């Protein structure tokens, strides 16, 4: 359902991505792993229209994503979170999630100017849906607080809720458990499983191997901008190329 073909990107002569091809099955939880600087986040940036690749194609359900502006990619059903959390700190939790519903609120200027019944009904529905999304992450009690009052782990959860508000078919998570403790990680694993059960395909970047191996159906390994292995966690765990990329080659 989601396919990247021959993706290449140069930054000032440096080849960040070399001919990257991978696919993500619909309804799966897949991971993109690799050492620091392998180009994982660049792949995400190419998908979401923040970086324009030099070559290649990215297709979601047969629709080409390359060449589209970021907001159009979101409207086609791709949502993402960031490695360094990017929530709207001065807005309330509810407002954060409501911003995610932006393109699903369908009313015109006259509706908001005159507070028409269409406006009221749509805003009410959006508020209820936002509240429900917050409760999915146990954040609903704090819905009227500003986002900056949340703890680090909660801010990540708010970012998930906000991403889900865009009603994605594909959710990209960039290092979702970075900086989390063991309990928070287990909690998040359950939540990602819940997200999948809502019909969302999850594609994530992560360094925490235990997390990835336990959670994911399929793994792609990137090293120096090239795919060096892909397969199930079992295959990846024993793949000599992967072990070499992470630990270095055994010296004779």
């Amino acid at each position, binding site marked *: 359902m989601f396919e990247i073909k021959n993706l290449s990107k140069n930054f000032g002569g440096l080849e960040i991505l070399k001919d990257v091809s991978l696919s993500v099955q619909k309804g799966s939880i897949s991971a993109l792993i690799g050492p620091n600087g392998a180009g994982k986040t660049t792949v995400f940036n190419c998908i979401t229209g923040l970086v324009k690749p030099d070559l290649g194609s990215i297709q979601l359900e047969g629709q080409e994503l390359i060449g589209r502006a970021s907001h159009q990619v979101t409207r086609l059903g791709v949502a993402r979170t960031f490695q360094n959390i990017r929530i*709207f700190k001065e807005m309330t939790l509810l407002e954060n999630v409501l911003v995610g519903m932006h393109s699903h609120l369908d009313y015109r200027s006259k509706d908001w100017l005159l507070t028409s019944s269409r406006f009221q009904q749509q805003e009410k529905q959006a508020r209820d849906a936002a509240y429900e999304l917050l409760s999915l992450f146990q954040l609903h009690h704090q819905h009227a607080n500003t986002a900056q009052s949340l703890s680090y782990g909660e801010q990540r959860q708010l970012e998930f809720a906000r991403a889900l508000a865009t009603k994605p078919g594909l959710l990209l998570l960039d290092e979702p458990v970075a900086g989390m403790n063991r309990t928070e990680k287990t909690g998040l694993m359950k939540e990602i499983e819940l997200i999948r059960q809502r019909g969302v395909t999850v594609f994530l970047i992560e360094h925490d191997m235990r997390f990835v191996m336990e959670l994911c159906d399929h793994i792609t390994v990137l090293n120096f901008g090239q795919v060096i292995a892909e397969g199930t966690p079992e295959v990846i765990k024993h793949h000599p190329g992967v072990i070499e990329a992470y630990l270095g080659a055994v010296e004779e």
Partner: protein
Amino acid sequence: MLEWFETFWSTYNTLILSIGINSLLALSIALTLSCGLLSLANAAFMGIGAYAAATLTMKLNCPFELALFLSILAPICVALVIGIPTLRLSGVYLAMATLGFGEVLRVIIMNIEFIGGPMGLNGIPNITSFWHVLLALLAVIYVIWRLKTSKIGRAFEAIREDEVAAKLMGIPVMQFKLLAFTLGAGIAGLAGGLNAHFTYTIGPNSYAFENAVEILTMAVFGGANSLLGPILGGALLTLLPEILRGLKEYRLAVNGLVLILVVLYLPNGLWSGKFRRIKKSMERNKDNHQHV
């Protein structure tokens, strides 16, 4: 009683109308600021509105209402043209570009004989009444208030906080920036049109750098993040020089001191401290009740 009011009005009418005009101007820049755009073109847009309206009523005998309408429309058109290339800039770079636009406009106006060149336009009919200004102010407040409660207001705020995150929420950032910029231009133009019709005279230097900074100061002083803040700022900064009239030559110094104190102790403006916190906590209680 009526007699007392008549004396009061004839003494203070210019001041009262100026409060309204300055509130409109402060609201106009607060609107562009709410989308994260530091634009200093609002004085220039006010000038475009003023010149458009005054030219229409003086030279073409146009009805006042139509002239006012065009004083909104003309700056909006100009804002669309200059907004598309300049709004790619952010922060101080945008401020510099828009300031440059204001200077260019001033020089252009100075060289057009038809609208008086450096002498400006004199003998503009005195048409603006208290009701015109009040109606304009209420209409603008209403529109901004509605806008802030809609998805557009939320989009503005999201763009101000984090442009990249806003994009990935499906918000077409460029379009919304252009909307905030042009709406601000329209409001400033309306203020200019109204202002021209009670000051008798306008000139190219009435809409220059100092005025641009003054408009920004009023919004920031009152609190640019709220709806009432800019109005408060506009009113107080219009009144302050009058109140301090007794201080004679120290007037400007004290005026500056008040500004410094407010910026130091209330960095988010006057209408951001206590009042707002009380209001917020009341809203929170209300919301909690709804969702029990």
